């Protein structure tokens, strides 16, 4: 009987894993949950703190991922450009730091200081926010629109079409979406995909 235990465990793990393969989380148009997450300054940040803004750019990102690193500077620039327009960046690190030491709270504080982050960099310790949103990789962007206090999802996906070279970008997926949203137009491309690092689930 005991010899079947590993097999049963394996099948159970497979079951759990394939459940995660099914596309869950938000779709464009859904109302995003509020959260209260710890920021690198030890304070708590919630979406309701942004109720006077037009929206927010929620980006699931982290320290260790090469793709996230390549977008660091672009995320800083996005905040500089769009925070004043009413769309500030909220960065959230969903990774389990026991799997990636580089993604620990202390390392997040260090990186934000080095790079001069102008936006909150939050810890999703329970990973509940990432799971509810349906984030799978870093970086993974959710552009939210403030609908009278309710934040609805307006765009999900990539920042642009060239991770390697910001100067060679031809399609600015996120910026186009923000501009269309701000102009009261329909967001034409409201969902894109990109290669990224898997979120390190607990």
């Amino acid at each position, binding site marked *: 009987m005991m010899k079947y235990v590993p097999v049963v465990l394996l099948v159970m793990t497979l079951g759990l894993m394939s459940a995660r*393969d099914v*596309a869950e989380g938000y779709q464009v148009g859904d109302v995003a949950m509020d959260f209260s997450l710890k920021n690198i300054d030890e304070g708590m940040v919630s979406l309701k703190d942004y109720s006077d803004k037009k929206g927010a750019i929620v980006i699931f990102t982290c320290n260790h991922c090469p793709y996230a690193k390549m977008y660091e500077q672009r995320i800083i620039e996005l905040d500089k450009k769009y925070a004043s327009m009413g769309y500030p960046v909220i960065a959230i690190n969903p990774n389990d730091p026991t799997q990636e030491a580089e993604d620990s709270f202390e390392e997040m504080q260090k990186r934000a200081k080095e790079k001069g982050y102008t936006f909150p960099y939050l810890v999703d310790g329970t990973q509940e926010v990432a799971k509810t949103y349906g984030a799978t990789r870093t970086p993974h962007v959710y552009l939210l629109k403030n609908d009278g206090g309710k934040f609805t999802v307006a765009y999900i996906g990539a920042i642009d079409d060239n991770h*390697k*070279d910001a100067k060679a970008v031809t399609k600015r997926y996120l910026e186009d979406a923000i501009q269309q949203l701000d102009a009261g137009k329909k967001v034409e491309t409201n969902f894109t*995909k990109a*290669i*990224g690092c898997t979120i390190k689930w607990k």
Partner: protein
Amino acid sequence: MPTKRHFGVLLKKYNFISSSTADVFLPEESWITLGSVFRLYVSMYRFLFILLFNMPLVVQAQEAVTIVKFEDLHKELSAQSDSATVINFWATWCKPCVKELPYFEEYHRAHPEVRMLLVSLDFSEEVEKVNTFLAKKKITIPVVLLDETDYNSFIDKIEPTWSGAIPATIFLRGKKRIFVEHELVEGEIDLLIQQLNRIPE
């Protein structure tokens, strides 16, 4: 290992017969006979040498990684084959990918009839890093490096349910297909291949 050893014995035996019989019976003077005995030893050692240093080559060594564009990969993906094909998307910097890599290598060595391809999403500027990594890990599965930027334009063409996170693996046989977007555990490749085979035609 017993098969290899058995093969080695046969080779030595073959060498002993083929190179020595002619040599031993040709010479009439003793010093030539001594020479032929010497030659016999040399040829035996030569075969032993070939055996020792060439046997590992039965398992083919990894060739340098080829850099490809999406179109090349798409051809590979749409090539229908009666045998199972496994395509794994990975990168040297992706920890879960590196963790599952030995399972692919193990399966590849045990099941040469299953076609395997590793698609590296490392950056093309760092192809040497990938080559060094593969040599160190003794990976013999063919590897290509996908050099693309606008991922959104082709991820759906590879697999509509793929979010873009790696590791991700496709199991194909004819029109049958299984896609997984997670780190595989030991024994899972075998299970997934069985699952693939059970899908009705």
